[in-house]
């Protein structure tokens, strides 16, 4: 016996038209297989309807908050380790590069020492040159400006400093009053 389309109609949730309903009823009267299928599905549906939703044990939200704290702690721990790993990796790469550069120096230490002495002498020479330059500029400037101008400049500078100090004091005092 052909059970299609009756089986599909039985299990479909779409509404059937009048003819389809009539044909299905006729078929169910003579077909045990399809009527059993209908009855079984109706039983299952009733069972689903009679089965309520299950609730979790009391304190679910509290347990979730604890889980969130634990989750954040683990995430921070992992992030710290990742950061440490990246830093350690970077440091290791730098050390390896430094080691590679140091190998030729360690093979011939006299060259390395000579290089160091040369650099030291060069540094001292640079410092001396810079010192001489600064002194010569200062000397030229002091020779160019006469002593009365120097006294005037110094006096003006002192006045400006005193004025700045007094104004600052006054401004600070008025702000405190406003508060």
């Amino acid at each position, binding site marked *: 016996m052909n059970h299609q389309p009756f089986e599909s109609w039985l*299990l479909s949730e779409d509404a059937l038209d009048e003819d389809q309903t009539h044909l299905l009823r006729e078929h169910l009267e003579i077909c045990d297989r399809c009527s059993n299928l209908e009855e*079984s599905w109706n039983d299952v549906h009733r069972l689903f309807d009679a089965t309520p*939703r299950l609730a979790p044990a009391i304190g679910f939200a509290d347990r979730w908050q604890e889980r969130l704290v634990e989750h954040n702690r683990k995430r921070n721990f992992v992030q710290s380790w990742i950061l440490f790993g990246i830093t350690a990796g970077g440091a290791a790469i730098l050390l390896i590069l430094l080691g590679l550069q140091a190998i030729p120096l360690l093979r011939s230490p006299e060259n390395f020492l000579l290089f160091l002495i040369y650099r030291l002498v060069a540094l001292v020479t640079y410092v001396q040159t810079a010192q001489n330059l600064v002194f010569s500029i200062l000397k030229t400037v002091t020779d160019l400006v006469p002593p009365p101008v120097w006294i005037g400049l110094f006096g003006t500078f002192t006045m400006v400093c005193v004025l700045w100090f007094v104004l600052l004091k006054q401004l600070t005092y008025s702000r405190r009053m406003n508060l």
Partner: protein
Amino acid sequence: MNEFESEWLRKAQRGDQAAFACLIEVYQTPVYNLCYRMLSSANDAEDAAQETFLRAYQGLSRYDNRRSFSTWLLSIAAHYCIDQIRRRRFTVMSFEELPYFDPPDLGPGPERSLVAKEKQQQVQALLESLNPQDRAAVVMRYWYDFSYEEIGESLSLTISAVKSRLHRARRELALLWAEQVPLPQTVERTRHESPAF
């Protein structure tokens, strides 16, 4: 979603953990029930429900306020449970590690409780016969009255795929039920014949 829930959701999206805890109080039962129907274990369901809320909390910034919050939440739960079921297939478990199966007590009185427990076990046995996606579709349809569109949205399926899956699931469930509880055998009969003979 009522006014309070919308307000809690807005606050939670701004990072208010207490507001999200209020949302958990409201949605814990639907989420837990879905997880239990999918995983058939109280312990696994608790874990899955907790994980669902954790993922939802972390993904709140991506949540589209035009969508239904419950659909979004149950979608996360369903996808997580489907993944868990698929993972279980590849995990060899010892007898001691098997999940503890004990659904929560449903009502007063040992007799009613026993009947309810038996029903729960029958339902779970039926649901376990389905593949994970069909199971999720059936649970959403018959416990949450989700429309085909909502099921499709939640499970990333087309409406025709949802219809086809549900049809197949209903057939499987009916056949399995008929095997478990054999219906009285009826003899071949002709129309208008009395069933007494």
